[in-house]
């Protein structure tokens, strides 16, 4: 190595030799830096350890999700079904809607029957009850009696 000189811009040294020299110096500096990295303060080393554990746990959770039957992971964690639903599945999904419609129709029918029954009961009560004498002094009732409809 005596007398062998290299310059920054490699004027006097062949490129391969210059690169080898640079690499040797660089690796020595990197070695020193590694010593520093090993001597990190305890609190920082501990926080790095916790961050690592957190990251590994996260990866484990995502793996479990991605291997769950019928599901797989897409993009940022959105779960989707693995295949389009079959016709039977689609028909089955319509069953609740059909049940709801039938139920509504039945409720409407029952309500209408109740209304008719209530009106019939009122009419029956009016027609079968005794007519009070004051009713004949009522001009409206008198007019009703005269009308052809009441005669029928």
């Amino acid at each position: 190595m005596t007398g062998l000189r290299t310059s920054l811009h490699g004027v006097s040294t062949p490129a391969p030799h210059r690169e080898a020299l640079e690499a040797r110096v660089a690796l020595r500096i990197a070695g020193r830096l590694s010593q520093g990295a090993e001597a990190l303060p305890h609190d920082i080393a501990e926080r790095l350890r916790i961050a690592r554990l957190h990251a590994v746990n996260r990866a484990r959770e995502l793996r479990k999700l991605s291997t769950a039957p019928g599901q797989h992971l897409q993009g940022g964690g959105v779960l989707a079904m693995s295949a389009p639903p079959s016709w039977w599945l689609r028909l089955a999904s319509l069953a609740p809607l059909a049940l709801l419609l039938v139920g509504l129709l039945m409720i409407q029918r029952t309500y209408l029957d109740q209304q008719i029954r209530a009106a019939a009961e009122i009419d029956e009560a009016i027609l079968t009850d005794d007519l009070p004498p004051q009713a004949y002094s009522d001009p409206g009732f008198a007019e009703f009696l005269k009308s052809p409809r009441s005669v029928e």
Partner: protein
Amino acid sequence: MAPASRTLATDHELSDFLKSVERRAFKRTAFAVRDDEAALDIVQDSMIRLSEKYADRPAAELPLLFQRILSNATMDWFRRQRVRNAVVQNFSEFESEGDSGDFDLLETLQLAEDTIATESAADSVGRAQILLQIEHEVTQLPQRQREAFLLRYWEELDVAETAAVMGCSEGSVKTHCSRAVHALAKALRAKGITP
């Protein structure tokens, strides 16, 4: 059976990998952002990103992926800082054109080897101080030079991998590395330090 290179990383492999890089990742980030708390946050975010997005990759791909994620996370931090504080960071590519052309790299190496050979117990006491000086000089490097130097020689990526992480050509990586080594060696020698 799948080839070994396509075997997905297990939790154990992911953990071992992160354990092997976490300290260097922290120091590298701290050199760049000069803030230990921010560096810890960036490294933690990078670990989570790796585990969330790339845990299903083969273990052999993890180093390059992690370095890329870490570099991007650091750049994101700088962008956020720039927007938040409008602080001018030393992001420029200003290269010192006035570097002395006749600086002797080999002499530096020779001195370093001599120093190790004759190191006494008393010398070792000052090691921590020397280390601080070396780290200080690393932080003083232009950002791209520092990144290229640390990826290439500390993370031991090859030139092509370093170029991929940095998003530049292999020639640029070589240039950045060369300038960084010379700048470091010169600065350290000026302080009487042999790496």
